[in-house]
């Protein structure tokens, strides 16, 4: 019944288009090439971090630390480049590794010490930002390296680089979750950890690895953040974890675990970014923006939860009958 309504991508894609139409109706500048470019740049960091948040949510946890991780890792990267004379690419690789290590810490505390992930990563949120302030006496590191900015602002074939990062990482993450054993185990553990253990799945290792992936994705976000601003700062990434979680949730991920979709999260991130972009174009104050985003989260999750009821409305059933036709209806009889 109403299959297209049930598809995990339907909600987030519709949400994205609805907000895009709304924004477009308020300003012509929305579809200007410059703005679309800008949009792609804006969405990239949230979207990449949200990959990790989604995977952790699917395994049945939550990660509140990526915002602070980004602060720490931009400081680390900028310090390596500016003060410690580390070779450029090595510094990038070390930053990514450091992110995975921070993820290991979160994963270890959650999966092996069995501290609930909300508490563990709340502690990490505080601790990692604290560590970020220990670099360079707590001051931002500006002009880290002139090779940094091209990583973010560069183009290949006239297309901005962040677009490629999004494609590469989302394809990889989608593959991991839908085609690899680890991905299946992540869904299994999030769906029913007890049953997963009794089916021979190493539950703790699975949870651990989910946090490691989240840490790695936060590091990817950190590299882009540092490249975008050619600097590191202990104040970067405040609230980013909440945007990433919001993207996952708008994308239909269930905080109870076991449900969620990587590609849907991308549309979740797009929805948030388009709203922000639209409000910016209309010169709405940041404070108002935050209120609007809060409302969007409730609305998106609400629509997801009420989907069954919406599906039963006459308008949709009639539309389904005429437009989609008899899809496997006979199989149920």
């Amino acid at each position, binding site marked *: *019944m*109403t299959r297209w309504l049930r598809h995990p991508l339907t909600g987030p894609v519709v949400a994205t288009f609805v907000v895009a139409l709304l924004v477009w109706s308020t300003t012509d500048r929305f579809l200007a090439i410059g703005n679309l470019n800008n949009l792609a740049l804006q969405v990239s960091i949230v979207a990449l971090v949200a990959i990790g948040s989604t995977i952790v949510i699917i395994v049945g946890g939550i990660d509140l630390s990526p915002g602070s991780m980004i602060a720490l890792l931009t400081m680390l990267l900028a310090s390596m480049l500016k003060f410690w004379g580390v070779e450029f690419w090595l510094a990038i690789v070390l930053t990514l590794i450091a992110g995975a290590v921070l993820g290991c810490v979160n994963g270890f505390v959650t999966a092996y010490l069995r501290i609930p992930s909300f508490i563990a990563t709340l502690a990490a949120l505080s601790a990692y930002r604290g560590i970020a302030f220990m670099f360079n006496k707590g001051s931002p590191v500006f002009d880290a390296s002139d090779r940094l900015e091209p990583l973010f602002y560069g183009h290949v074939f006239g297309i901005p680089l962040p677009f490629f990062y999004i494609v590469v990482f989302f394809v990889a993450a989608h*593959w991991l979750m839908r*085609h*690899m*054993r680890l991905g*299946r*185990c992540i*869904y*299994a553990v*999030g*769906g*029913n950890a*007890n*049953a*997963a*253990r*009794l*089916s*021979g*799945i*190493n539950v703790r290792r699975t949870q651990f690895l989910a946090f490691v992936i989240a840490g790695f994705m936060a590091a990817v976000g950190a590299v882009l953040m540092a490249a975008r601003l050619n600097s590191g700062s202990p104040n970067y990434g405040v609230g980013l974890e909440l945007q990433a979680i919001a993207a996952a949730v708008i994308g239909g991920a269930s905080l109870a675990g*076991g*449900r969620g979709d990587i590609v849907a999260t991308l549309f979740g991130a797009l929805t948030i970014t388009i709203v922000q972009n639209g409000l910016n174009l209309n010169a709405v104050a940041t404070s108002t923006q935050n209120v609007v985003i809060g409302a969007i989260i409730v609305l998106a999750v609400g629509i997801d939860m009420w989907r069954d009821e919406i599906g039963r409305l006459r308008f949709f059933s009639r539309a389904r009958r005429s437009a989609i036709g008899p899809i496997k*209806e006979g*199989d*149920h*009889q």
Partner: protein
Amino acid sequence: MQSPHAVAWELRDVRKTFGPVVANDGVSLILYRGQIHGLVGENGSGKSTLIKTLCGVHRPDEGTVLCGDQQVHLDHPITARSLGVATVFQEFSLVPDLTVAENIQLGRWPGRAFRVNWRTLREAAKQVLGDLGIEISPDARVGDLSKAQQQLVEIAKGIAANASIFILDEPTTALGAREIEHLHALLRRMRSGGTAILYISHRLDEVVRLADVVTVMRNGRVVSDADETPLEVGAIVRRMIGKDIEKHYARMHTTIGQPLLEVRDISTDSGVRRVTLTLHRGEVLGFGGMLGSGRSEIARALFGIEPLTSGEIRLRGRALNLRSPADAIAAGIALLPEDRKNDGLFFNFTGARNITVASLGDYDRGFSLDLRRERTASQDLIEQLRVTPEAQYQLVDHLSGGNQQKILIARWLNTGAEVLIFDEPTQGIDIGAKEAIYELINTVTRAGKGVILISSDDQELLSISDRIALVRAGRVVRTAAAGEVTKSDLLETTAERMTAA
């Protein structure tokens, strides 16, 4: 049959659909005051939907619900409750952190405004528990109680509601013989007090003993109403499945082969005490004894859930070192857990993915799972075990209990396990599915595998097992051929256990 009593509740031509599935198709039912009405039918026959309609959980698409002679709209469980509907569901609706007394009176705590009268609360709970003949302290935290005790509290809660209609959905699955008698006595007393009782159970002998009239449902319809149904198990079964069953428990005994699993002197901290037993190829070894006798704990030890503190387990002559279920699965041991919902099923997966989840290693090519081979494997098992074809793409949530259980068995067949431990494999599933599971047990033993069967259904245990190990307080007190064990042996084990505890 004469109906001397007043009508308490009536359903007229109730129809309820879920998408393309017609769960209730023109169902009519009359419930009289002072009458115990049995409702039976296979899983998926529409009983649960009917109950939920009466409780205000589902709103019918068509048809009417009458309370007395007044038509009512049960648009919410609260509406139903205020009209005097009390229900004991299969799934518990207890708050684990509250005490027994608080749970029993949940939502009706005595007292005024912001002050709860704790003493009245306690006394009222004590009264109900006393009536039931249960010795559970009203001050105990519900989360600390055993499953059987929680079941009793759940029933006490329904009784305390002083309802005009009392609905019980499979109330006895976790109860022992003595507790069932207490419950039945109490229900009879409520009947003479004028309460209408709707009693749903898969244990037909129980229904026949207790109920005044029985309604049989099949495929969403009433196939035999209260006036037509004879109070006799065989006749009810025929109406339930729509055909005769030749033999209820068709066990084909196979030739017993070499020892497969040898357990020597194992103990665990969870209460297994120096258990020794041998399971042969082609054999069904039954564990007799009641809930809490330690049968499930032995099973858990054999599956690597509980670490051994002493003794050893040998499979095909090789000593095993089981540190986790993963080790046990790799060695070729499988456990079908008693609690399908919490320990077995992945409700976010389709039936097919539930089947393959324990053998993902077989499809792992490093960077990808061989999804095509995975689908073929699950499809084969779905056909072989005659699971509904929907299982291939439907979430297990939407499948019946019998289909869910078959899917869990398929999961273990797919791992190629040789020792299959079935903990209450037929609990809460209908007769058709039960038969299918007995048939499966025959198939696997014929293939030279060994089955350990734990069952609270004595008849089933005696008929299906080749040998029976009587378990009491974590020990195997006696092992004998099934023919030499009688029902009273099983009960004795139970009784001794009760006095011991």
